[in-house]
């Protein structure tokens, strides 16, 4: 009201260099506390993976004099039947677990996405072939196959384990994605993209994929957990990188020495919990994915510290004092 001279042109919005309206907050999903916590935990694990071996107070292999001792000031997580320091083993073991888990998760998710979405979208023989491929992989029981593959290979490194897990566990995700793609491919916007002249792979990756992110995200979380569990299971039944520690190796030793029966809970518990916390972190991160995936879910937020819960179908009414 105070401004009396208004540039008509500017008001019409023709020439006015209006500031780029509310630039998209790319990282706004971090604002979600749950996601933040998840990211922090994951970051912590990644740090452990990088620095764990350096941080460990003892050589995880080194035998000590204190056999099977409960946690003490010297040995935070106690010792094994050979007097090895379990805390050091857990620290050193993080690398293998995180590396294998993420590697396998990425490989499997990538394969699942590529094969699943393509086989769902392509209505031709190629699609059928891909779908057959995923069926074949689906029927080959993963764990025995991993055991078998691992035993064929001359040496089993973490990379190999990760790849093997990744290459054997994508089929499930592919199948689910395929099914979901089948129902997406009839959407108008897919047709529209096609009619615009998008190439098939672009439609798959840029039109369909973002709409599948929810499925992919849960698939990824699932696969990483599955990969970590597989790795640990493998180590538990004796297939692991011989030069490296991972939590499965710890559990392997604990189990073969019957730690629980001996009352050596400290040998058994930390590794299991560490895995569980990793899984939880991933599922916490998943919460933030909603908002990346679905632009319509963004913005639900707070106004001056007071949180307003946006609910579809029940639009919030702000109290008059908010105006």
């Amino acid at each position, binding site marked *: 009201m105070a401004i009396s001279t208004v540039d008509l042109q500017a008001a019409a919005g023709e020439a006015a260099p*209006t500031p780029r309206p509310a630039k998209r907050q790319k990282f706004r999903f971090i604002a979600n506390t749950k996601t933040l916590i998840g990211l922090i935990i994951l970051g912590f694990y990644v740090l452990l993976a990088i620095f764990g071996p350096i941080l460990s107070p003892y050589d995880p292999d080194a035998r000590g004099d204190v056999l099977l001792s409960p946690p003490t000031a010297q040995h935070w997580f106690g010792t094994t039947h050979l007097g090895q320091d379990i805390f050091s083993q857990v620290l050193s073991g993080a690398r293998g677990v995180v590396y294998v888990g993420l590697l396998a998760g990425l490989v499997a998710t990538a394969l699942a996405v590529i094969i699943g979405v393509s086989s769902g979208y392509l209505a031709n023989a190629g699609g059928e072939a891909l779908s057959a491929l995923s069926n074949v992989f689906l029927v080959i029981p993963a764990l025995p196959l991993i055991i078998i593959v691992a035993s064929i290979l001359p040496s089993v490194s973490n990379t190999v384990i990760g790849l093997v897990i990744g290459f054997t566990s994508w089929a499930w995700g592919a199948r689910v994605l395929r099914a979901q793609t089948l129902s997406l491919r009839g959407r108008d916007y897919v047709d529209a993209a096609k*009619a615009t002249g998008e190439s098939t792979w672009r439609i798959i990756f840029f039109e369909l994929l973002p709409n599948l992110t929810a499925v992919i995200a849960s698939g990824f979380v699932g696969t990483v957990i599955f990969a970590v569990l597989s790795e640990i299971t493998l180590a538990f039944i004796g297939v692991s990188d011989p030069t490296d520690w991972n939590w499965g190796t710890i559990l392997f030793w604990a189990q073969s020495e019957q730690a629980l029966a001996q009352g050596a809970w400290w040998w058994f518990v930390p590794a299991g919990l560490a895995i569980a916390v990793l899984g939880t972190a991933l599922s916490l991160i998943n919460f933030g994915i909603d908002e990346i*995936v679905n632009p319509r879910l963004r913005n639900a937020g707070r106004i001056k510290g007071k949180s307003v819960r946006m609910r579809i179908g029940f639009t919030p009414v702000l109290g008059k004092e908010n105006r």
Partner: protein
Amino acid sequence: MTDKTGEVVLEVDGLSKHFPVRRKGRELLTRKARSVHAVDDVSFTLRRGHVTAMVGESGSGKSTVARLLAQLHHPTSGEIRLHGKRVNVRGGRRFREYVRQVQMIFQDPFGSLNPVHTVRYHLTRSLRIHGNANGNLEEALRELLTRVQLTPPERYIDKFPHELSGGQRQRVAIARALGANPEALLADEPVSMLDVSIRLGVLNLLRDLKERLNLAILYITHDIASARYFADDTVVMYAGWMVEGGDSETVTQKPAHPYTQLLIDSAPDPDRPPRADEVGGEPPSLIRPPQGCRFNPRCPHVMARCKTELPPRLEIGDEPGHWAACWLYADDVEKPAAVGSAEVAG
């Protein structure tokens, strides 16, 4: 450039599309597959620098025709010719080659924009794919948006579809099709959600493009008045059939087919006192379309023949090129030869 005006871009000949209907338990035994006869024996041409309007009943197969032309559906029979060459592509490079020349604006802007992409993405893609970004993408984007009166462009460029009103979405869809710089544009009710003033702007824009770039436009609409103003030719569809065609002014001012007459009569007009006699009747089922002329159950002028024989296209004679598929205009002496060949669907 201009000398190309009138050149046929797309030609449709005897196009039909039947959608199979799923049989349910009991019907599985009878083994007779049913289908929706969405489009039957449709023929017309799109010429450079011409706008062909397609009006008609809701559900009469207009969108299906557009989708067939865009190669998103594949015809049950009949053919589509682009520059005289028959096309039936299902994907790949040939398909992209085709869409470079033929673009489609979808009827439903709520469905045809990908909810996860911004306006910028949609438009950028269309520009990029067809190599129309030419250096300054930002500039091209701004220009596209300004063309469809989404101004200031900055305000819309980074929005997601759900943040736009219906009309705004429709304009994004138009802009997307324009970004490809096609030869033929299939516009399926492109302006139905725009207010009249913007609608006018957009139609003027299309007309301008048509004239400058020799665009061939198929303009599907329910707004017959706009067809009159904007289109050179108009065809009328009823229950999957083309029932009348001719230049727009004639079809709208001197409709020949009883359905067209009904259509024109029904158009809202504030100047005209509301009529008392509403023509009733229900649109026909496309699964079991009526025998003979599909309009016969509702037609005020129905004759015995209408119930058995399918009328061929008959010249009206008042204006060149004006025709209607109605026995009213049959010269009784010469029995149309086409009747025999037109299969009576049932």
